[in-house]
Structures are given as structure tokens and as C-alpha cells.
């Protein structure tokens, strides 16, 4: 379980996160939803320590992340996998080298063991025979899958995904969502996903936090989200043609 307690974050005058407290459960796909610019990415980067919070605490299974020094964080980070919005694959490395990178950096496995692991995770994300390709030769969906493979190569306890299906067609988005959800259940990972896609919310939202203007506005799950009285959330949920027809 990961908990955020009274988290505040500003960039200069711009107060982006306002007193956010919420928790994300193990073995569940926890979603952070909200409009573009509402602060989802900043919240996620605060959770993993890429940004320092101005105020508040981040707790990983009773370990206070905010009080850790550089070395302790480095150790904790080896339990974290993260999928970035654009994939963030290293563009001068092949798919295989990308997925193997954390293993090379942090394990003492033999070449064969590492290769086994790489092929295993690539297979898990339904990618085969792409080992020698460069990231620039992959489609958007494949990049995301390689990035997922890299994120889970070290068997993380915590998985963070920033807009895993931005820029993908609805069908591929669904595939990526299901993949993240399955992996979460299969390995009992604490997964946090940022999204503004209602399809994802309704299919994989075990636990949903709605961020509005940097504040935690609503907390629930995929079943309760269609039946709330919250005005801003309703506007977000029923904001598209498709979902507004659903309401009628």
C-alpha cells in the first residue's frame, strides 16, 4: 500500500497540488483521474520522488519515503517500476537492451539468466521477435508494451503508469489496460495509473481518485463513479458524446 498524506506541491507561485491525502492498495489497479493539467503527473512524480513535496508525507508500506536519504531511496526504487507517458525507452538501445538495462545495472545474473528474464517479460506483454529492433522502429502500442516489460523486469512491488494509453487507438488502449490489470493481479503489485480515459476507468478502476484543480475531489471505484452527485466529477465522466449517451 502506498499512502499520500497532506501532500502540497507548488512550482513558484503556481500551487499545483493542494493538501492531497489518499491511499493506493496492493493487488489493485488504483487510478488517478482528472482533466489534462489537473496535476496527475505531478502527483505521480511526487509519489516516486522525482519531485520533492513541499509539505506532507509519502509512505510505502509503513516506510516513510519522505524521510529517506538518497541511498535508502535508491534501494526502494529497485522495487518500483514506472511507465512514462511517452514510454521513455532509451533510444540508442535495442528493445532487448532496454528491457535488460535494469538487470545489467542492479543484478549479478549471468547473461543467460538475464536473457531468459527479458524474453519472459517480453512474452508476458505479447511481444516476440522484436529483441533486435530499435525503439524508433516500433509502433506506439509496441513502445508502451516494451516500456511495461522494462518496468516489470525487476519484479517490482509498485508499478506507476502515467497515461499508459495516451496516443493509442481505443482497441490498443484496451489491450494495454488489460495487460496492466492482469499483471497487477498476477503478481500482487500496488499499481497506480494516471488516466483521463473513461474507458480505462470503467474497465480497470478498482479504486479511483478524481483530482480537480490539484485537489482530491472524489474517491471511489468503477462501480460507484457512474452514480455520484458530484458536479465536477459528473462533468468529467459524462463529458464525451459516448458517455453522455450512456447517461440518457
Amino acid at each position: 500500500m502506498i499512502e499520500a498524506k497532506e501532500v502540497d506541491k507548488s512550482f513558484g507561485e503556481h500551487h499545483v497540488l493542494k493538501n492531497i491525502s489518499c491511499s493506493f492498495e496492493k493487488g489493485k489497479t488504483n487510478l488517478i483521474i482528472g482533466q489534462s493539467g489537473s496535476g496527475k503527473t505531478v502527483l505521480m512524480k511526487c509519489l516516486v520522488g522525482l519531485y520533492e513535496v513541499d509539505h506532507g508525507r509519502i509512505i510505502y508500506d509503513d516506510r516513510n519515503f519522505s524521510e529517506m536519504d538518497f541511498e535508502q531511496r535508491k534501494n526502494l526504487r529497485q522495487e518500483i517500476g514506472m511507465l512514462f507517458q511517452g514510454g521513455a525507452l532509451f533510444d540508442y538501445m535495442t528493445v532487448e537492451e532496454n528491457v535488460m538495462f535494469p538487470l545489467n545495472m542492479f543484478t549479478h545474473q549471468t547473461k543467460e539468466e538475464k536473457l531468459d528474464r527479458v524474453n519472459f517479460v517480453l512474452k508476458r506483454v505479447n511481444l516476440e521477435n522484436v529483441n533486435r529492433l530499435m525503439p524508433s522502429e516500433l509502433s506506439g502500442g509496441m513502445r508502451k508494451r516494451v516500456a511495461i516489460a522494462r518496468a516489470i523486469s525487476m519484479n517490482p512491488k509498485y508499478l506507476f503508469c502515467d497515461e499508459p494509453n495516451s496516443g493509442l487507438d481505443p482497441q490498443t488502449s484496451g489491450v494495454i489496460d488489460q495487460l496492466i490489470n492482469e499483471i497487477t493481479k498476477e503478481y500482487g503489485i500496488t499499481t497506480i495509473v494516471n488516466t483521463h480515459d473513461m474507458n480505462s476507468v470503467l474497465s480497470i478502476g478498482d479504486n479511483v481518485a478524481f483530482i480537480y484543480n490539484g485537489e482530491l475531489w472524489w474517491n471511489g471505484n468503477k462501480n460507484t463513479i457512474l452514480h455520484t452527485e458530484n458536479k465536477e466529477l459528473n462533468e468529467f465522466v459524462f463529458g464525451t458524446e459516448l458517455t453522455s449517451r450512456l447517461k440518457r
Partner: protein
Amino acid sequence: MKDCCNFSKNIPVEFKVFTQTGDYVLLMLRVFTKPQKARIFWQRLMDEIQGLGIESIGIVAFISAFMGAVVAIQTAYNIDSPFVPLSAVGFTVRQSVILEFSPTVISLILAGKVGSRIASEIGTMRVTEQIDALEIMGVNSANYLIFPKVVALLLINPVLIVLSMWMGILGGWLAMSGFGLVTTTDYVDGIRLDFEAYTIFYSLMKTLFFAFIISTISGFYGYKTNGGALEVGQASTKAVVVSSILIILFNLVLTQLFLT
């Protein structure tokens, strides 16, 4: 940890140079640490020597040969007194190439070629979140990305500069014998006249300084890029301008220091 390099936010422009120097020093403290995995460091170093060094050989040789030729031709045509021997041409080429042209001008050219490459490569990694990806894995991204580049330039730039010296002198000779201005014997006599090995040492010391400036300044501007493709371009321009200015300033300081 992006936040460690964010001193310069919300501070009046006049103080920027101080806060940037502070940011630079903080970044360097993260760069100059022991690499996490020696084998990966060696691999990165070899790649950088290839990318930053070997690929610069052509341009360095080309520019040096032509500059040597031009210096020789200028000198040859400007000697009209019968009291100045023609060996002065070889002497002038040698002195200008070894003392200033190769270490300083070639370093400036490398600041353009290599500096922009370093800044845009690292800047692109920053804006596409590849640096965040490294940090998340627990990699010291500053050390992983910048340190091999610094070491590569410190190793390869002296080699390039020595090559440049040879090519400059060779270019001067080709021009002189090609146009029949000075005989080979006179030219070589000039090259050998009062030669002091110390000048080579002095040149290489300057080169090492400049290599350090190019790699760390460009690494710094790339690493602290913020935004998108536009900012990557700006970072790479800044890297070239600032390292060129620093090379010129330090050239004055070092020349004073070494020659007194």
C-alpha cells in the same frame, strides 16, 4: 531528483550567473562519483570515444590542414625583406599551430560540434523523460550520462589536437612545395628552429582544460533542459556559446599562467 538543480527559479536575472554556477557545481558533485557498475561505464566510455572522438577526426584534419596552408601562404607572401630567411615560414606555421591554433581554435570548433551534440542528446533524454526513467530505476543519471562523456573528451581531445598539429604543419608544407614558394629544406629547417617540447605540453594542458569545459558545460545545459524540442535547441545553442566564451576567457588566463 530534478529539484536539486532548480536554484535558478524566481530569482532576478542579475543573480542568474551565480545561481547557475551553484547549480553547475551541485550537478558536478553528482557527476563525479564512482560509477555504479564498472562494466557498464567502460562500455559507455567506448561508445562516447567513438561518437565524440573518432567521428571528429575528419573535420579536425580537414580544417587543420587548410589553416596550416593558409598561415604558410600568408607568411610566405609577407616576407619581402632579404634579411628574413624563408625558413621563417616553417617557424611561423609551427608556432601558431602548436601554441594557439590547434589547442584553442580546434577546441572552439569541437565546442560547436561536440558540445551541441552532448547538450541535445542529454536534453532530448530529459524532455522525453528518459532521465526520469533512469532516476526511477535508482541510477544516478548525472553520473551515468555525463561522466563517460567527460572522460572520453579528456582522453580523445589531446589526441585530436596532436593530430591537428601534424595536419597543420603538413598542410603548410604541401602548400609551400605545391605552389613552389618555399623549398622543403627551408620549411623543415623552420619547423625545427628553436623547438621546445614544453610548448607541446603547454598546449595539451590547455586542451585538457577546454575538454573539461566543453563536456561539463554542455552536459549541464542538456541536463537542465526543461520543456520540449524548442528548449532542446536552445540548450544546445547555449552550451556552444557558453563553452566558447569560457574557452576564450580561460585561454587568456592559462596563457598568462603557463608562459610566465
